């Protein structure tokens, strides 16, 4: 059983002894420990929040709070900490809005997310990762995919990509930014219907 932070405050401090992290360290920690949880975290939020249009912003808020906490002290049990933060955020939102009873937020134990067992998420083999990437690539808008392939597969410069695609260098950046944004959803939200739109 993992100790969860005080439910009365959703900016609760992690309970483990850790060191404070610099911003780049915190980003690396976040990418390694938290992002792999995104699929199940979104499932948790969707299941426990009525207004589905708010999920994206709730997710962002959970992330931001976890990140802030980690900068002060990296939680020893990241998974439990992320879900405790999410749960506390929802409870406080419910309290503020005074719409539904607090029981509407499901027990973490019931969801089976409280244990900090290493998830299967990131232990994918290189071959599996490549397959995942290729399938995501196929789902990109054609022009974005073209720009990404020229950059990542063929290793071309911005100017060369612009020349090959017959577009301006600024548009190269736009396409790649759209591509990485779309890929971030596809790669961290493997459930198909979560990757689409906002």
């Amino acid at each position, binding site marked *: 059983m993992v100790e969860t932070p005080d439910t009365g405050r959703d900016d609760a401090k992690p309970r483990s002894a850790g060191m404070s992290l610099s*911003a780049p360290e*915190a*980003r*690396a920690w*976040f*990418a390694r420990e938290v*992002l792999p949880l995104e699929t199940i975290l979104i499932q948790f939020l969707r299941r426990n929040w009525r*207004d589905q*249009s*708010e999920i*994206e*912003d*709730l*997710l*962002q*808020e959970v*992330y*931001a*709070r*976890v*990140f*802030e906490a980690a*900068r002060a002290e990296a939680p020893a049990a990241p998974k439990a900490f992320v879900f405790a933060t999410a749960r506390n955020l929802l409870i406080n939102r419910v309290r503020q809005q005074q719409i539904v009873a607090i029981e509407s937020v499901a027990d973490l134990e019931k969801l089976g997310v409280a244990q900090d067992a290493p998830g299967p998420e990131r232990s994918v083999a290189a071959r599996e990762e*490549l397959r995942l*990437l*290729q399938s995501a*690539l*196929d789902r990109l*808008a*054609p022009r*974005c995919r*073209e720009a*990404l*392939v020229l950059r*990542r*597969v*063929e*290793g071309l*410069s*911005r100017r060369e990509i612009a*020349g*090959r*695609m*017959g577009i*301006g*260098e*600024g*548009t*190269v*950046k*736009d396409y*790649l*930014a*759209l591509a*990485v*944004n779309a*890929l*971030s959803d596809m*790669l961290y939200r493997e459930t198909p219907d979560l990757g689409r739109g*906002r």
Partner: protein
Amino acid sequence: MSDPRRTNEFGDAAGIKARAADWLMERGLSENWREEDQARLDAWLAQSPAHEVAFARMEATWERTERLAALNAALPEVRAAERRLPLLLMKFAAAVMLVVGIGAAGAWLVLEPRDRTFSTPVGGHEMVNFADGSSVELNTDTLVRARMTTEERIVWLDRGEAFFRVKHDPMHPFIVVAGNHRVTDLGTQFVVRHDARRMQVAVIQGRVWLEGAEREKSEHSTLLTPGDVATATAKSVSVARRSSKALAESLSWRRGVLVFNHTTLAEAAAQFNRYNRKQILIADPQAAARTIGGTFPTGDVEDFTRLAEAVLGLHVTARGDTIVISR
């Protein structure tokens, strides 16, 4: 209008994600990432933990795509991926290659229909609907050129003011060029005004990118969200927030009226002068600083000057096409 429930203390999540992706690419593609560029990025990151996490997420995604380089060695797999591209895209790619092959810019002129020009006289107001479902509403004394093709959607606002309602298509960004700035829509309603000194963009819905028309890699670009009003001169860009009420008032010309709300007489006169051949001249600074409120038809200068006379007790004298207001 944006849904207020959408925003939390960290702001619009989708907008932050888009901005983070843009920062990452700006940095990654730059061959000359300078200290001041890094400082701008650091400043943005420091603004909010939401920015930090969005950036970390994009960074991690981008690192994962590094593995795609493996496809280069495994060329047969790339071929397989290419075969999955829709036929239309392949045709399109062939057409682009043909044009690039010919090389000259003139090739486009052969293949593309000529740009269309739309204009309104002083006091005019016109709506232009494009085949892609987007529309442009022209305010008084406005000149736009439009190039709407399967490849690009560009509107040049050469003069005046226009309200854009854009049918978003991520593959074909809708771009408005005004002077030395360009605005790229990300699913949007926005208004652009362009006169001799400056250009101004106000976003009503969605998001737009504002950047220099040359789009050099070091150039600053700004993501604007609803309520943002950006004013750009040749040398600078500043962004202010405006309430939705103030924004709606500034768009009142679409209903054929001007709305003033604690507006100085000088500003009100300047507004009327955009819509009318008859020009209001305010002869003394004290009168110019008086404020007024109310709603007036854009073309009814007399209605406005009557108010100045009756309510503010000012003198109104007509001299040919000029109406002089004095104490």
